[in-house]
């Protein structure tokens, strides 16, 4: 009986620990951002485009506009690139692929999702970025390179979730449409898509959440320069990259400003993911 109570207690404590970690993250991020929040406020911080370290190395003028913009723009490019391909893959896997191809293609797509993000960064840095540069000019490490590679990274994730959503379409509906002479395209457009709409939108938003918080691939590829991107092919910076590049040698106020950026990023991704999971991807079991 002692073991029984011990086991239950241990498992209850572990469940609490999960909650505790989440709240601890918010509290710790807030704690370290306090001096930046005090100095710059909220609206001034997110509309200020400067990031200047003070002469003594501790003070300075820090604003989040450029990294916030860089984060959103690179993720937007990622979505524009990923959505058509991911949807194509999902459609291919649910309605088009012959049975013997479904498993291998599905596995290939899932393996693409398993590759660590730093590998995408390496590949983009040495191969894909220079290729894009030779096509579009500008810089090899740019908003465009970062966005497209981010897109490639989220494709498998988006495709797998959309496929799962499409697979929930009752086969009775699909079969009756076919039996009435509908083409595959019509079945997809009029039966599968409307049925899986919520799940598909959810998968896109969830992928957006991933793209917003991605660090390593973007750190290799976005250029890491603190300035407005004046074209698609110019370098800029995103929130995770700002943190990854400058965190190590930051003085007090800059460190606090970076915790502030992390807090903002965490809140943005928290809401994005929450909307996707609880509005669009709500499981009905």
């Amino acid at each position: 009986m002692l073991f029984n109570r011990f086991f239950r207690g241990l498992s209850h404590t572990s469940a609490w620990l999960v909650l505790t970690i989440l709240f601890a993250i918010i509290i710790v991020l807030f704690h370290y951002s306090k001096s930046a929040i005090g100095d710059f406020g909220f609206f001034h911080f997110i509309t200020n485009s400067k990031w200047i370290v003070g002469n003594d190395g501790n003070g300075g003028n820090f604003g989040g506009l450029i990294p916030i913009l860089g984060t959103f723009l690179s993720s937007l490019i990622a979505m524009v690139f990923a959505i058509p391909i991911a949807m194509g893959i999902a459609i291919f896997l649910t309605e088009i692929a012959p049975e013997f191809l479904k498993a291998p293609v599905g596995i290939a797509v899932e393996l693409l999702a398993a590759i660590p993000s730093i590998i995408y960064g390496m590949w983009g840095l040495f191969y894909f970025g220079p290729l894009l540069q030779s096509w579009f000019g500008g810089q090899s490490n740019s908003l465009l390179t970062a966005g497209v590679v981010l897109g490639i990274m989220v494709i498998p994730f988006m495709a797998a979730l959309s496929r799962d959503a499409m697979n929930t379409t009752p086969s009775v509906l699909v079969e009756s449409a076919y039996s009435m002479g509908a083409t595959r395209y019509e079945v997809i457009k009029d039966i599968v898509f409307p049925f899986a709409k919520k799940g598909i939108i959810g998968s896109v938003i969830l992928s957006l959440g991933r793209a917003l918080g991605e660090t390593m691939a973007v750190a290799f590829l976005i250029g890491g320069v603190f300035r407005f991107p004046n074209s698609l092919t110019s370098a800029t910076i995103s929130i995770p990259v700002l943190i990854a590049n400058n965190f190590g040698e930051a003085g007090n106020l800059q460190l606090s400003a970076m915790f502030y950026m992390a807090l903002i990023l965490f809140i943005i991704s928290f809401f994005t993911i929450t909307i996707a999971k609880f509005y669009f991807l709500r499981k009905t079991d």
Partner: protein
Amino acid sequence: MNRLLLNKIVITLSTLAALIGISFLLWILITLSIRGYHSIDWHIFTTDLVNNGLRNVIIGQFILAGIATVIGVPVGMMAGIYLREYGINSKFSMIVRNLSDVMMSAPSIVIGIFVYGIFVVPFGGFNGWAGVIALAILMIPIVVSTTDSMLSLVPQELREAGIALGASKAQVIYKIVLSAAKIGLITGVLLAFARVIGETAPLLFTSANNNFFSFGLSNQYPSLTVSIYHLALFPSQTSQNLAWAGSAILTLLVLFINLITRFIFKPRKQK
């Protein structure tokens, strides 16, 4: 005729999309194989980073991810057990389940600097334990989620049979439910391990890196992924080659673990 043509176009486009997706995978894998083939030799496995080898960082990465697994798996699994076996439909379980799901997608760099705040600043410097904690935090929600869904596949009758025989709740969970879900749970743990062993961002400001062989987790600790990051950006052919060697080894490892779980452990999915 028009609608048939439209149909053909859509089918072609979708097939093309699948081809594009697969060709990216092949492109990355081929690049890695070629660059890896040219830069991997035995020297890499016998010397440390300080002498242009990867021995210390590979072992370091395994130790970080390994200890993170030892910490993260029991916590995640016990939490998952609570959600599925004790508080199945309670409000508390719903909240934990949902927030754990959200945490699973939280940006890993945020986890990294959170751990910096609680494990690096108070102890006065980067240390291996901070890296372990960061990876464990990343791992816990993944394990919670797989445990939760794997236990949900265990038929209720098995639990009832155990209770009917006079087993306590803990015995039922421990001896019946967990062993029925064993294969799924092992798969989940392996996938979670594969996920964290490739992580870089949470380690940048926690365990940082170390050029020398080390078992001392209270100091800066060697890591393969962080090394790849630094080596790749260092403008020298030698270090970039080393970065490619590291990338090829890491990818091989991660894909190998993924394939194992797919081919050997994956039970037939039933929905």
